């Protein structure tokens, strides 16, 4: 059998045997599967959980690392800027302490003189020029307290108003100042002003400050010296950047050129109140690290610092995307790994479950197939579409197909008609109904073999719940033999019936012939009897005077014999007539019937002492005319055989017996010997001599014939010389009972 491949799925394709999973399969597989599910779920949760924890700690690590990096970058840059500023300021202080500066600005002995000697100015300018040249400043200036430039280096640009104002303030307050000049980052200058104070004298300066004479001012160029160092990176990144910011009115002014801004040197400004802006936090003086937005609106990891003495802020930042690039890759890799692991695990589980299920199914299916093969009938399992999904060897044999020729084929190929309708009817019912249905009783249909020959079958359907839905198991029995046997029985029966009816016809014919014969004999016998009687009579009447006495006696004897023969013929005729007559049954009260018969017999009772004892008799269903003959015969017999009795007694009564009425007529006459009882009811049977008791010997035969026609029985009991009793049975009518129970021996 090629169908025992356990790896095959439950799905059926044509030509492939179905996997029939009986109800036992899932019940054993289910608990195991549930524990698999648990294990699988738990494993997945553990792996996913640890992956999540790992990712989380990695995230922390990344954050910490970047915090350290950005903080150090920010700190380093802040320090760098501070030092740069300090150095410039120190330079400004140096200028302010130059002797020539003092000389120029000090009133000295020639106080009140407003003009500085040209020689001194030249000397100052030379000194300033030298300083600017040595330190690389664009310009070095000395200003008087009114903010007028009293000396400057050569090529020094003209000072802006802000610088003049700053130096005036410094000259007045003695506070050094650092001021940022210029709107565009790459042309920015920073001015450092330092106050110039008079030389302290030991005499008048105990605690008082020396008077302020003016201010020294250095114009430094951050674009060349400071800004490039801001962006220099020890570890190169793609988006790492340090920005320097300050407040400018309501806006945040990005002081240094920006690495990532497309507009570059043209100056970047952002509203002061833009939330999440790292620059804002820096300007607020907070020294923090966190996630912020930069001037592009891009999410960044940033450390914020404030530059002392300046009111500037510094932001050391890197794009979050770059910062977490490795982390993201790690997360993706890890997620992929977890997913793969899950898939792998699920795959293993599914495979295992399928393997286990398949094994269970295999076992069940083997059992099922063994059962199927063991079945004495052809068995075919069809799905609800009528496709054959399974069959046993007997089915192959019975229909003459190979197994693979039938699998997947519609069952109509082998059961032509009647089956599909049943199947549809079954399918229309709910599955529960179909299952609840008892095994279908046999339905007789025709099956067709592969060679096209038909044979009678009986099918039995029973639904089966399986993995493929409701399947119907069809038991198919070849009933050819049974039908042949049935046919033989039918033939025999038909033959029997034919023979019986033929016999019956023969019997009826014989009966008819017999009766026709009797009738015709009786009929034809009457005519000569009449003639004998007629002519004897005429002879006596018309020729009596010429006849001797003996002749007249003979004629009388002839006439007597003729009369008796006439009676016999009449009785015989009557008997045959009863045989032919149809009963006309009526419910009849026997008492009134008996009275009528008795009344008709009164002429014969003349001169007799007869006591009649007539009990209450039942109502019976009978032919009244014939029943009268019965009683008339029995009564005249009773009267005849009690003739010798001084006191004759005739009793009529009835007994109930098994739904029948037993009627009897009893007399105290001469009776008869019971050894002749069997001759009593025969035609022409007589137990007495004719000269003792006249009679034709047909009366009791007539009684028997009538009672038998009523379905009853007649019999007699007697003891010689002590009387006789005649009994007969009659059926009680269906719904009629006598009002009084019969009273034995009671008077009517």
């Amino acid at each position, binding site marked *: 059998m090629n169908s025992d491949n356990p790896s095959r799925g439950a799905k059926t394709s044509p030509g492939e045997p179905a996997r029939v999973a009986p109800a036992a399969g899932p019940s054993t597989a289910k608990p195991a599967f549930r524990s698999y599910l648990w294990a699988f779920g738990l494993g997945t949760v553990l792996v996913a959980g640890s992956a999540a924890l790992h990712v989380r700690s990695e995230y922390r690590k990344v954050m910490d690392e970047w915090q350290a990096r950005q903080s150090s970058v920010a700190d380093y840059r802040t320090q760098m800027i501070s030092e740069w500023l300090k150095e410039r300021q120190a330079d400004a202080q140096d200028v302010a302490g130059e002797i020539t500066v003092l000389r120029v600005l000090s009133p000295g002995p020639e106080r009140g003189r407003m003009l500085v000697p040209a020689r001194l100015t030249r000397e100052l300018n030379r000194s300033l020029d030298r300083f600017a040249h040595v330190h690389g400043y664009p310009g070095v200036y000395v200003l008087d307290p009114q903010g007028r430039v009293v000396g400057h280096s050569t090529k020094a640009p003209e000072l802006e108003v802000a610088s003049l104002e700053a130096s005036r303030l410094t000259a007045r307050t003695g506070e050094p100042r650092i001021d940022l000049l210029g709107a565009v980052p790459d042309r920015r200058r920073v001015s450092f002003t330092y106050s110039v104070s008079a030389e302290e004298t030991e005499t008048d300066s105990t605690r008082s400050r020396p008077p302020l004479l003016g201010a020294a001012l250095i114009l430094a160029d951050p674009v060349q010296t400071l800004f490039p160092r801001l962006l220099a990176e020890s570890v190169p990144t793609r988006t790492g950047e340090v920005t320097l910011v300050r407040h400018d009115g309501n806006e945040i002014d990005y002081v240094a050129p920006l690495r990532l801004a497309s507009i570059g040197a043209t100056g970047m400004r952002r509203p002061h109140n833009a939330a999440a802006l790292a620059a804002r936090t820096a300007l607020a003086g907070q020294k923090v690290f966190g996630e912020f937005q930069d001037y592009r609106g891009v999410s960044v990891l940033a450390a914020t610092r404030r530059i002392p003495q300046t009111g500037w802020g510094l932001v050391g930042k890197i794009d979050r995307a770059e910062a977490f690039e490795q982390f993201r890759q790690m997360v993706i890799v890890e997620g992929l790994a977890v997913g793969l692991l899950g898939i792998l695990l699920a795959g293993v589980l599914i495979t295992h479950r399928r393997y286990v299920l398949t094994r269970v199914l295999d076992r069940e299916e083997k059992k099922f197939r063994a059962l199927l093969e063991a079945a004495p009938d052809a068995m075919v399992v069809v799905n609800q579409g009528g496709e054959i999904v399974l069959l046993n060897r007997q089915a192959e044999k019975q229909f003459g197909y190979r197994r693979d020729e039938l699998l997947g084929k519609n069952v109509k190929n082998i059961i032509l008609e009647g089956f599909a309708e049943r199947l549809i009817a079954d399918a229309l019912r709910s599955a529960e109904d179909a299952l609840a249905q008892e095994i279908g009783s046999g339905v007789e249909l025709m099956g067709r073999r592969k060679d096209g020959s038909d044979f009678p079958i009986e099918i039995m359907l029973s639904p089966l719940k399986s993995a493929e839905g409701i399947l119907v198991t069809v038991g198919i029995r070849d009933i050819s033999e049974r039908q042949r046997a049935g046919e033989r029985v039918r033939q025999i029966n038909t033959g029997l019936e034919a023979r019986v009816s033929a016999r019956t016809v023969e019997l009826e014919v014989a009966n008819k012939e017999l009766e026709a014969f009797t009738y015709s004999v009786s009929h034809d016998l009457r*005519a000569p*009897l009449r003639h004998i009687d007629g*002519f004897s009579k005429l002879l006596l009447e018309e020729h009596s005077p010429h006849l001797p006495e003996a002749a007249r006696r003979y004629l009388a004897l002839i006439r007597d014999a003729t009369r008796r023969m006439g009676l016999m013929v009449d009785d015989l005729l009557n008997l045959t007539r009863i045989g032919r007559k149809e009963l006309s049954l009526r419910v009849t009260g026997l008492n009134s019937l008996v009275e009528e018969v008795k009344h008709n017999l009164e002429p014969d009772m003349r001169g007799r002492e007869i006591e009649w004892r007539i009990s209450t008799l039942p109502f019976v269903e009978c032919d009244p005319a014939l029943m009268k003959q019965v009683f008339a015969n029995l009564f005249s017999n009773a009267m005849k055989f009690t003739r010798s009795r001084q006191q004759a007694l005739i009793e009529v009564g009835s007994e109930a017996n098994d739904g029948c009425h037993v009627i009897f007529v009893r007399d105290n006459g001469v009776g008869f010997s019971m050894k002749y009882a069997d001759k009593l009811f025969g035609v022409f049977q007589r137990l007495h001599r004719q000269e003792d008791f006249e009679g034709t010997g047909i009366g009791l035969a007539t009684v028997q014939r009538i009672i038998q026609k009523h379905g009853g029985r007649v019999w007699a009991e007697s003891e010689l010389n002590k009387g006789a009793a005649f009994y007969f049975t009659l059926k009680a009518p269906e719904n009629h009972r006598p009002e009084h129970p019969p009273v034995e021996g009671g008077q009517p």
Partner: protein
Amino acid sequence: MNSANVEILLVEDNLADVELTLHALRQEKLANHIEVARDGEEALDFLFCRGPHAGRTFENPPRLVLLDLKLPKVDGMEVLRELKQDPRTKAIPVVIMTASREEKDLIYSYQSGVNGYIQKPMEFDKFREVVKQLGLYWLVVNEPPPASAFRSA
């Protein structure tokens, strides 16, 4: 015999019966004009005025037909039926006088329109009495059908 004056047609095949019947009728002085037919065919020839009786007319039917049932050639029932089916003869009184008193014979006879049915009594005295009464009734007491009753249509 002047067939025009026939009063009784006796249809009887048995000569003894014919003689006894005629004897009884004669005793009663009723047998002046009696025609005897010995079988059904003779009876029909007479009644339908054909064959040897072609000279007869339908206007002069017998006053009474005494008909036996068991007859040679054409039986009494057939005679009765033909008689009672023909408008020219159906008014003729017919009394069946036979040995049988079979119920089917009685039924059939009366359904065919018979006017009387008598079983010939066994004893001659009774037979004579019956014949006498028959003759008296049909020839004396009973009013015969008028001549127009024997015309067709």
